[in-house]
């Protein structure tokens, strides 16, 4: 059992998804909800157990079917991937819980699809094989296509159609890149690829470069990096907010893959190809931050605003990936967890606010007052302070850390002013949105509003997410130590390769 622990965060959501499709849970609404939440808690527990094991005995390598490393597929659980698996499973719990208030009845198969999505995301984080990464990408994508259509209207169909077509092209490009890399390197195990890259000679170097940069296109599409980010605001703003909250982790899959590919495979040891994507990543990341900030300023409703915040966070993370130092990676890991939790919380809050404002919904304009201004206002305040990056919450620590990590790089003269101005823009936009939504009221006497109050399960799930921000700043010490450990594992080329290829001994 303990030996197979690495595989459980992938296996359990799959079993959960299948189980929830079976008759006893397919018919009865309540039993389905309860089972779904319990199963996602079990998945989270297995992810936590894996986290404890990884922090106790370093990297865990699991050879699927006992086929050893360069020939079979391995799952690699190191500090970074395990942390992200925990984060995904936590989001799974929150979303199943939140949707149990009624969102899951707006279409069919909500709960199984959430578990399948968690399966795909967990698998993408854990896998150590590039082709297997493609397979898990497809698993998470097909679940996300269906979730995107869940309870949808016309706008939703349009956004989903564009999203699906973009991602199908992305998958095709992914396969081309893998084909080139396999043709040149003769392997798709990431550790083995990293070893082979430095031995390339002659024209093969250019072929590998083409393959590597095509991968950049794919990851930029998944992670919503400029100029391939255009699908994101529409998709996230039209999806059901609880689904959008779950999607908050999906752009991070792209960023995570960039970390793996451009730090491990095309990193320090890659000979002529080392750091080949760095300049691309850096400038695209900066442009993404600018576009995201402009998008935040221009957003007309809360959900679109949050979607643009996701774009900004992706830009910030990719800039840190481009720096490629241990400290930058550690800052990126901390910021990644923080931004995922906060944007997910903001999506849910936008939904709750929208429900209490009648026809005005979540538009940033004067409308009927929300029914529970104190509760939602405090929640929005906490999330806003965290996402803007003001003290004392986690956003501030993340921001200081990432500024410190970039201070010695050659581009810091560009990054610092640009990032700080972007933060200021976000501060303005959110302050304006918050004050308009909570303080500008029409007095409506004729129109009777149906009073909708926040249901307990919704409240619990939002509180779980919001707790992240203060907790991450209270426990910043241990967390930053953990992030440093994970970043060291990511950058420790020889150790990683030896451990993975020898099967985790």
């Amino acid at each position, binding site marked *: 059992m303990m030996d197979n622990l690495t595989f459980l965060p992938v296996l359990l959501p799959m079993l959960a998804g299948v189980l929830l499709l079976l008759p006893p849970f397919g018919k009865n609404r309540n039993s389905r909800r309860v089972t779904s939440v319990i199963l996602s808690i079990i998945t989270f527990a297995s992810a936590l157990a894996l986290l404890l094991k990884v922090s106790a005995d370093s990297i865990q390598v699991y050879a699927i079917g006992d086929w050893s490393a360069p020939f079979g597929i391995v799952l690699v659980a190191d500090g970074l991937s395990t942390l992200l698996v925990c984060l995904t499973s936590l989001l799974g719990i929150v979303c199943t819980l939140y949707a149990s208030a009624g969102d899951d009845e707006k279409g069919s198969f909500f709960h199984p699809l959430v578990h399948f999505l968690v399966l795909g995301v967990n698998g993408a984080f854990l896998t150590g094989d590039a*082709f297997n990464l493609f*397979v898990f990408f*497809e698993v998470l994508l*097909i679940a996300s*296509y269906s979730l995107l*259509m869940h309870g949808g*209207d*016309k706008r939703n*169909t*349009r956004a*989903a*159609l*564009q999203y*699906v*077509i973009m991602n*199908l*092209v992305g*998958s*095709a490009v992914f*396969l*081309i890149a*893998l*084909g*080139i890399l*396999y*043709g040149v390197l003769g392997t798709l195990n990431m550790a083995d690829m990293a070893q082979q890259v430095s031995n390339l000679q002659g024209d093969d170097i250019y072929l590998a470069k083409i393959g590597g940069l095509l991968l950049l296109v794919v990851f930029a599409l998944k992670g919503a990096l400029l100029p391939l980010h255009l699908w994101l605001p529409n998709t996230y703003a039209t999806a059901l907010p609880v689904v959008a909250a779950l999607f908050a982790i999906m752009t991070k899959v792209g960023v995570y893959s960039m970390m793996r590919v451009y730090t491990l495979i095309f990193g320090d040891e890659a000979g002529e190809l080392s750091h080949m994507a760095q300049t691309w990543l850096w400038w695209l990341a900066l442009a993404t931050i600018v576009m995201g900030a402009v998008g935040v300023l221009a957003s007309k409703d809360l959900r679109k605003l949050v979607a643009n915040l996701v774009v900004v966070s992706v830009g910030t993370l990719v800039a840190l990936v481009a720096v490629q130092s241990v400290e930058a990676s550690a800052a990126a890991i901390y910021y990644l967890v923080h931004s995922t939790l906060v944007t997910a919380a903001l999506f849910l809050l936008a939904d709750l606010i929208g429900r209490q404002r009648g026809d005005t919904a979540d538009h940033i304009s004067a409308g009927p007052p929300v029914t529970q201004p104190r509760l939602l206002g405090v929640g929005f305040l906490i999330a806003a302070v965290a996402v803007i990056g003001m003290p004392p919450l986690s956003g501030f620590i993340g921001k200081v850390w990432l500024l410190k990590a970039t201070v010695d790089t050659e581009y810091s003269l560009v990054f610092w002013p640009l990032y700080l101005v972007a933060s200021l823009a976000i501060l303005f936009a959110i302050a304006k949105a918050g004050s308009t939504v909570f303080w500008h009221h029409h007095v409506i006497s004729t129109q009777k509003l149906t009073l909708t109050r926040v249901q307990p399960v919704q409240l619990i799930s939002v509180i779980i997410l919001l707790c992240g921000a203060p907790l991450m700043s209270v426990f910043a010490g241990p967390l930053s130590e953990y992030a440093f450990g994970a970043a060291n594992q990511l950058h420790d080329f020889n150790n990683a390769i030896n451990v993975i290829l020898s099967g985790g001994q």
Partner: protein
Amino acid sequence: MELLYASCVGLLVSCGVFLILRSRTFPVVLGLTMFSYAVNLFLFASGRLSLNKAAVLGYSSEYADPLPQAFVLTAIVIGFAMTAFVVILSIRGRADLGNDHVDGQVPDNERNKHKNKKSKAKV
């Protein structure tokens, strides 16, 4: 053989890309299908093209690389599922949006053309 193979892949990719860039869903779906055919062929060739080589170890001194075949098989299965999904989604889009444009709305110049045709027919 290499030249023929490479030109086939190239032709399929260029047709696929051309069709994907069209504005209506039907050509786009066709383009995606063609693109995925090209990708499958390309993946197959990543183990190098060869004739008369055994795929199983131990039956001859030279053997073909079995891994690309496994890749292609996986890619075909996934591509098939995704194509089926996008076809259904396009049909749903046609029903929901009232037209088959990828953007969900008929562009202005095309609408005008349509009107002109109608008015001419009336005349």
